[in-house]
């Protein structure tokens, strides 16, 4: 018992320390609500619909209601980790190769993530708490379309054009000062002006002549306000580069392009699998695999005004090991084959997201009813149906920590079938991309 509490404390402290390390740097990609296949099959999250994974290479989640029976705060004893190994290493992947993978195999490899989840409170039919472990895998396929390709090509050519302009003008500016071709700001402007004019006139073909002239004039006016120390010109050149960058609105273009890549419009399909490992006597040498799940989740993301909106379908097949459940859940009604089908709608805003799902379940099992005159076993088929509706609210405490709350009516649980209310709070931590270097714990 004492060991168990220490374990919990160490786990929690480790996660919090990792979290602090992670937050010591500004993170670039926001985390999403936890939805790993492993935590789903273990029942740590009530949702049947697995949302597409976030871009974090390593995620951890703690699951708990955080309030004990006596109203006191409790340390979570359920946790989950999800890891995407491909992104721990550089592959010199060009942006084009990233955006347009050559085949399904490339997508499978890049998007493959592996999850593990653990609980010390996997209850058997007699209400005894045992250890449960779950392992999961998932990958995503993005199905490109013509509109997406057009959008990407527009961004790509605009950014390349801006980068070329910055480089042509910037390299000349550096050359003038490094090679001491000018003695003061007036000489600098006089010499750089022709480069600015030529470069903008040649590379911004979309602009009218008047607009180009106005842009050139604005740059020259801004540059003339700078002060130049000929012996220490780095800060001058930095400011000069920033004037060009600001006038070309390169940062805005970059941010829009980046945002579009993260939320590409159109269809994607997630495939996931998870398996549960139960230790009914809490002895490592005795384990069962009582359940497998397989998910197929098509997702459509809208664009423009409705880009905050995403719809997801779900088909989940679950198989139950009848021998295990007959032994350890004697009084429970279990169906061997279960198919869930439904949809979810999700809205994402700056700090929070809301998801609502409606899922139906069709279950069936074959029960032996004796033998025929030739000794062949006879079976009776039993069917059942159920329904789940669930709402989730997720709030980003920071880009690396997300708090999720789910409320709704779930499928009838194996234990206490009448207890279908869901009220669950969870925390999800993102650790960014561990590299070979950061994973070398011996250093």
């Amino acid at each position, binding site marked *: 018992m004492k060991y168990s509490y220490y374990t919990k404390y160490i786990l929690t402290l480790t996660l919090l320390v990792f979290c602090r390390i992670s937050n010591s740097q*500004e*993170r670039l990609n926001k985390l999403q609500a936890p939805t790993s296949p492993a935590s789903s099959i273990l029942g740590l999250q009530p949702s049947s619909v697995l949302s597409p994974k976030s871009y974090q290479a390593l995620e951890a989640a703690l699951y708990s209601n955080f309030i004990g029976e006596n109203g006191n705060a409790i340390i979570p004893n359920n946790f989950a980790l999800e890891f995407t190994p491909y992104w721990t290493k550089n592959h010199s992947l060009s*942006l084009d190769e990233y955006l347009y993978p050559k085949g399904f195999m490339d997508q499978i490899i890049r998007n493959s993530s592996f999850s593990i989840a653990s609980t010390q409170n996997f209850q058997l039919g007699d209400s005894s708490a045992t250890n449960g472990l779950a392992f999961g895998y998932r990958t995503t396929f993005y199905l490109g379309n013509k509109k997406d390709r057009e959008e990407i090509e527009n961004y790509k050519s605009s950014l*390349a054009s801006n980068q070329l302009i910055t480089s042509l003008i910037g*390299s000349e500016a550096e050359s003038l000062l490094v*090679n001491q071709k000018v003695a003061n700001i007036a000489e600098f402007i006089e010499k750089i002006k022709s480069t600015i004019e030529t470069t903008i006139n040649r590379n911004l073909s979309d602009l009218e002549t008047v607009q180009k002239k106005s842009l050139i004039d604005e740059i020259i006016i801004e540059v003339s306000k700078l002060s130049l120390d000929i012996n220490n010109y780095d800060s001058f*050149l930095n400011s000069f580069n920033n004037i060009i960058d600001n006038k070309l609105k390169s940062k805005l273009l970059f941010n829009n392009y980046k945002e579009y890549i993260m939320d590409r419009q159109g269809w994607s399909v997630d495939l996931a699998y998870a398996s549960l490992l139960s230790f009914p006597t809490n002895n490592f040498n005795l384990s069962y695999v009582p359940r497998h799940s397989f998910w197929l989740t098509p997702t459509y993301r809208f664009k423009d005004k409705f880009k905050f909106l995403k719809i997801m379908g779900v088909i989940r097949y679950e198989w139950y090991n009848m021998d295990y459940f007959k032994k350890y859940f004697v009084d429970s009604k279990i169906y061997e084959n279960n198919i869930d089908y439904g949809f979810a709608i999700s809205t994402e805003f700056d700090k929070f997201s809301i998801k609502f799902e409606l899922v139906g379940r069709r279950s069936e099992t074959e029960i032996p009813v004796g033998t025929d005159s030739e000794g062949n076993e006879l079976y009776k088929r039993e069917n059942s149906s159920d329904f789940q509706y669930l709402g989730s609210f997720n709030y980003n405490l920071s880009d690396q920590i997300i708090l999720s709350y789910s409320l709704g009516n779930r499928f009838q649980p194996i234990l206490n079938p009448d207890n279908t209310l869901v009220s669950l709070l969870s925390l999800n931590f993102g650790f960014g991309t561990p590299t070979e270097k950061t994973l070398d714990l011996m250093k």
Partner: protein
Amino acid sequence: MRKTYRYKNLTFPISDDKEVILEVEFVSDGNTGQTVINVPGPNDKEINNSGSKLIGKGSDLRGDSTICFSDIANLIPEEDEIRIRFKINDELIVEHVNQKSEEERPIIVLSIKFPTL
């Protein structure tokens, strides 16, 4: 303010008749960029993303410093760093690395002298 990373006073001794090839190699995933190599005289060269260009013979590059100016951006959410290698005639002269949390759109400037070997 956008960050510029400068690598100054680089030298690459080379004989007059030897050709000089400058290479930009994107090591980290998902980089995009344009590089302009401003050589002494009019024959400046451009490299779209990664690749290499013949920038002249040793004798063409004497006197002034050659400026290699790269405007880089990294747009993919899975990548945390920007790592780019600059090579001359297959010899590494600079390996630039910065975390994206520091700058997602770095400008990288190399000032290189090509003295006689």
